[in-house]
């Protein structure tokens, strides 16, 4: 009998597992895929290492910082700052027609950019900062208040509203068109006030440290073990039945599979059909270059682009929507080796994310799927070079992943990257000892998911005994 069965070996499941195993609980993590990581996994192709979800680890804070989500999770998981080895970004850009805002880690650069490009909004932006601080401390606004409404009531230039929403929606908004104000505040802090970073070795460094720690503490991790159903009576769950028929009993179940996905495992079709799963999925077009992006005049870590004054955050009607996108270059971080010497990835990499339609990709016959990938890779790159130096003649290899790939790694309905629009912040479900963590609990991003696993495990699986 396990004290806790965890569904999903992504960031949140692994983090929850570490907390529980550290305090001597008998815990098992079940993962349907052949590998760990969920959305934040990695793979190898043609001799190269690729990350799946990671562009940037948000919530960056330099070593020695005691406050903030990163410091909190390091303490909770008993890691040293070096175990994550986060290198800060060089700098990022929000690019709209005719105006660009530069971002660095910490608010300073964005504030001066707003003063420069939106002088009339200087005071309004300060007022928005106060509103965000008040939200944190007083929770005056409900989590699900409309971010568009709240922000527009303070920032009177609609273009600046769109430019502020664009990066925050791209990196963590499961809802179409608008955003929960609570989510807006979380993302605002993690991106604009804290900032971007990346380990030199990519997301695998973080995952390997999490798994190693979990195993050292006696946790069990079972890959290629999908949960077919959760066994329950009216009020309690008792265990799981795996796809292969194996039964595992457990006192608590912590699921990172997603809200609807989890309820479906309980055979709850009625409530799992109300208010719907998320619809927003992505393609990622990756190009390997024969030069470093900086040698081509591109020093930006991330570029969030939008080709009109209005930012549209919706499921595309066609395969992809190329009007907006995110360009990431993993080369453009300040990497240092242990002796403090600068280092660099061996090859240039450009990754471009576009909004994509899950059904359109999912339903293609194999041969056409392959062709569409090539076609949309080229179109995506063509769209992106409107906002950065043209790198096309330097491409030596490409890869692309689609909503279909995201579904394979996350098992989320619709390949929804950020899960369902309605979050379940307290983690509870209709069953007393079944909880959700991860994307659908409400914290997104690498740091967010890890904290989600920690906080739900603490609250329900550690403190109750």
């Amino acid at each position: 009998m396990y004290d806790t069965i965890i569904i999903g070996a992504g960031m949140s499941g692994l983090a929850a597992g570490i907390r529980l195993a550290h305090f001597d609980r008998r815990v098992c993590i079940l993962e349907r895929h052949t590998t760990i990581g969920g959305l934040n996994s990695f793979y190898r192709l043609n001799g190269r290492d690729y990350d799946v979800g990671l562009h940037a680890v948000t919530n960056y804070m330099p070593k020695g910082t005691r406050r903030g989500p990163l410091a909190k999770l390091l303490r909770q998981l008993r890691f040293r700052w070096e175990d994550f080895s986060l290198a800060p970004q060089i700098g990022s850009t929000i690019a709209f027609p005719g105006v660009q805002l530069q971002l660095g880690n910490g608010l300073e650069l964005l504030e001066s950019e707003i003063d420069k490009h939106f002088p009339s909004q200087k005071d309004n932006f300060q007022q928005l900062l106060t509103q965000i601080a008040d939200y944190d401390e007083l929770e005056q606004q409900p989590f699900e208040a409309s971010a568009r409404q709240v922000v527009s009531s303070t920032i009177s230039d609609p273009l600046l509203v769109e430019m502020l929403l664009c990066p925050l929606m791209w990196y963590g908004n499961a809802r179409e068109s608008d955003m929960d104000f609570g989510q807006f505040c979380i993302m605002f802090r993690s991106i604009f006030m804290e900032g971007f970073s990346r380990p030199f070795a990519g997301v695998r460094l973080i995952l390997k440290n999490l798994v190693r720690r979990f195993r050292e503490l006696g946790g069990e991790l079972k890959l290629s073990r999908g949960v077919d159903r959760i066994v329950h009576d009216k009020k309690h769950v008792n265990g799981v039945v795996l796809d292969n028929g194996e039964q595992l009993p457990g006192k608590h179940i912590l699921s990172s599979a997603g809200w609807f996905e989890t309820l479906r495992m309980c055979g709850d079709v009625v409530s799992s059909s109300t208010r719907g799963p998320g619809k927003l999925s992505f393609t990622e077009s990756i190009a390997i270059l024969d030069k470093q992006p900086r040698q081509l005049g591109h020093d930006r870590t991330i570029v969030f682009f939008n080709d009109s004054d209005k930012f549209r955050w919706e499921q595309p009607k066609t395969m992809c929507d190329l009007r907006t996108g995110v360009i990431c270059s993993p080369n453009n971080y300040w990497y240092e080796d242990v002796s403090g010497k600068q280092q660099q990835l061996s090859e240039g990499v450009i990754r471009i994310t576009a909004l994509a339609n899950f059904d359109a990709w999912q339903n293609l016959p194999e041969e056409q799927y392959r062709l569409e990938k090539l076609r949309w890779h080229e179109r995506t790159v063509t769209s992106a070079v409107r906002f950065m130096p043209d790198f096309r003649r330097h491409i030596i290899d490409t890869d692309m992943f689609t909503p279909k790939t995201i579904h394979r790694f996350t098992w989320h309905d619709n390949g929804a990257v950020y899960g369902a629009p309605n979050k379940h912040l307290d983690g509870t479900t209709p069953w007393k000892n079944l909880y959700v963590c991860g994307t659908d609990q409400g914290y997104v991003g690498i740091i967010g998911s890890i904290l989600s696993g920690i906080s739900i495990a603490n609250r329900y699986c550690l403190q109750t005994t």
Partner: protein
Amino acid sequence: MTLAEIREEIIDILHDIAPDEDLSELKDDVDFREQLELDSMDFLDIVMELRKRHRVQIPEEDYGELASMHRTVTYLEPLLKDVARVS
């Protein structure tokens, strides 16, 4: 455990929770919250580590007794006096 051993033990727990902190300069009469910016999650961890290592149960209403090193050691002394330190 003697008072000095209890202090050692708490330092050990703090080092476990915050491996990046230099604890050699820790002042016993200043609150942990102020010196190390520990939050409620961290205090709960100190309590849980004490339970894990020494089977000491600390009721929630006593968490405030763990505010500083001095207060923690004083509070724990009667609870740990018959427990041998294992290191």
